[in-house]
């Protein structure tokens, strides 16, 4: 029998990507409910992903928006 926490670690990223089967989801959730070691890591991974997403979001410069609009092909 495989170490359940090692198995949980393997499933963590696919779990967060919502690509596990229903059965695997239930298995991951039941392990997370019982295991503080994995639960803490799960919370950390989740907040890290949200944070990276927020930090990486840069608004498009206004000048670029104008340049793109100027590339439109005029009607004849």
């Amino acid at each position, binding site marked *: 029998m495989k170490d359940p926490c090692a198995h949980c670690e393997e499933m963590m990223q696919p779990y967060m990507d919502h690509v596990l089967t229903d059965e695997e989801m239930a298995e991951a959730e039941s392990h997370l409910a019982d295991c503080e070691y994995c639960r803490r*890591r799960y919370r950390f991974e989740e907040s*890290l*992903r949200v944070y990276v997403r927020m930090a990486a979001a840069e608004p498009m410069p206004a000048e*670029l928006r104008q340049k793109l609009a100027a590339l439109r092909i005029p009607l004849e």
Partner: protein
Amino acid sequence: MAHAGTVDRMEAEPEDAQRLATEARDRVRFEEDALALSDQVYRVARHLASSREDADELMQETYARAFRSWRSFQPGTNMRAWLLRILTNLNIDRGRRQQRAPQMQPLEANDYYLYDRLAADNEDGVPDEDRVVERLSQDDIVSALSAVPHDFRDVIVLVDLGDFSYADAAQILDIPVGTVMSRLHRGRRILKRELAESALEEAT
């Protein structure tokens, strides 16, 4: 005289005039839809490119090409993915190939590397999310992302920042879904290693 000729022709072939009007309308609509997506495309393009300047140029080349080849877009399909497919192809053409030459194997750590490193560095042994936010600045994130080799970075950027499915990312990059999954897995580990270095460097 030429003017009169044009009028005659239009009168002779009203279906043609009709077709041209429909096409003009479709094209205008296409351009408006593509421009409305530009913020979302930029969000991804910014990190597929190596710098803001590169992202700026890539966006312009992408939109210029998209406006020229609008007929090859199939209405009803995912326009954001279509635009990013053009963008990633242009990005590869712009000299990415040389960087695809054998590169050093990036250092990888396990999935919990960042957590474990931060925990080891923390008095109570438990890093919480606030501490990550405290320790990693926006610049740290941006530079850690840019330190991830292109092949890995592309999938992270499309899936984690761009919200594309594995299947969409596979189509945009023209690679199998299995490759998307394995690059994502390894890429996230590489990113965490880079982030750990930034976070711990600042602490010392």
